[in-house]
């Protein structure tokens, strides 16, 4: 280097500096690009995982929904074709039994269809809510009246002037579902309590049946939730009622939850706003 002229040295240093800057810039760009790609890859992996979960949930939903719909269709179709094939030779008693079975299953099919429609509205965030100021005691008594003789022994505890801001049809459906479940699964006394808590009305339906196993409580308000694994089920019903109840409560700015009813049984609760 000692042989080089001063200007040549300066040029070489400038060139070296320029190349170093370019190299450093290229390295910085490469590093930033790598970092970005890494984040993109991470996001893609997360999206893939979410899509897989969604796909699995969708697949399970189709499997269970198909099972639920097919179960009433099979006896309807089966008894109808048996009657058509044997009409002339069938005793009247058999005809009646088959028609009764068709009637039972047709009602069940209708309930299921209603439930699926409700779910599609809930999942799409399209639940129609027409809130009104309602007397809670009156709403409870109307629901009990509609449930018939089976609900005549249900104990009611509700302050006389307690009011709630809710859609009357949705409130009726929520209370009807909780009470039907309690009367169906809960042995012994069933009680419904209502109270004002801050700006909320809290309603609780208690029974003294077997209660819900701890491990099942977190899934209680999910779609097709019934104690048991995917292919088994431990209770009658569609397993859609509580999911619908939660959807209806949330659409009205409310919430639902489960409490153990000590010393025995279940307590299903819902919170809805009080009128201001």
């Amino acid at each position, binding site marked *: 280097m000692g042989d080089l002229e001063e200007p040549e040295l300066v040029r070489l240093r400038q060139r070296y500096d320029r190349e170093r800057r370019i190299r450093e810039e290229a390295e910085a760009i490469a590093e930033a690009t790598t970092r970005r790609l890494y984040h993109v890859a991470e996001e893609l992996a997360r999206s893939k995982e979410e899509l897989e979960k969604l796909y699995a949930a969708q697949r399970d939903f189709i*499997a*269970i929904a*198909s*099972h*639920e719909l*097919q*179960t009433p*269709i*099979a*006896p309807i*179709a*089966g*008894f109808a*074709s*048996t009657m058509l094939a*044997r009409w002339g030779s069938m005793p009247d008693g058999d005809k009646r*039994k*088959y028609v009764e*079975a068709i009637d*039972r*299953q047709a009602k069940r099919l209708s309930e299921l269809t209603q439930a699926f429609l409700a779910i599609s509205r809930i999942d799409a965030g399209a639940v129609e809510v027409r809130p009104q100021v309602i007397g809670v005691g009156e709403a409870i008594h109307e629901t009990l009246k509609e449930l018939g003789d089976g609900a005549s022994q249900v104990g009611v505890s509700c302050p006389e002037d307690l009011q709630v801001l809710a859609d009357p049809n949705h409130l009726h459906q929520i209370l009807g579902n909780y009470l039907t479940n309690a009367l169906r699964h809960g042995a012994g006394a069933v009680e419904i309590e209502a109270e004002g808590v801050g700006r909320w009305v809290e309603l609780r339906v208690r029974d003294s049946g077997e209660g819900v196993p701890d491990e099942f409580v977190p899934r209680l308000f999910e779609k097709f939730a019934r104690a*048991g*694994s995917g*292919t*088994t*089920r*431990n*209770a009658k019903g569609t397993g859609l009622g509580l999911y619908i109840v939660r959807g209806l409560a949330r659409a009205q700015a409310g919430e639902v939850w489960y409490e153990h009813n000590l010393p025995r049984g279940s307590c299903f609760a819902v919170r809805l706003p009080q009128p201001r």
Partner: protein
Amino acid sequence: MLMKGREGEMQIGALIVDDEEDIRFLIRTLIEAANRELHVSGEAATGSEALERLDDLDPQVIVLDERMPGMSGTETAALILRRRPGQRIIVCSAYLDAELRQKAEALGIKVCLTKQQIGTIPDVLRELMAENAAGG
């Protein structure tokens, strides 16, 4: 249980296992209407009940639902086959997918029907027993 019919022919007994009362009623109706060589040996609403009654009823064929309270149909079938290897079983499920078919095949169950095919049960029972008689 093999029984003798009115004219002396052997009857094929079927155990119906399904938690839906109307489905059991329908399968019973179809079997009883089919002809004299088929009869229903008994019914069970769960896999556990089927296992309890299995030895007493001694059915030639078991018609088994998959989705039931407690044990599933294939879980029940595995226990039945452990106790009675070679027991003829038909899985009859409202939703029959590849996974269920594979589970059934792995247990050696050859016939899986959907509930839409419930009307074919009498014919399938006869075919199964014919295969059995022929050593299939």
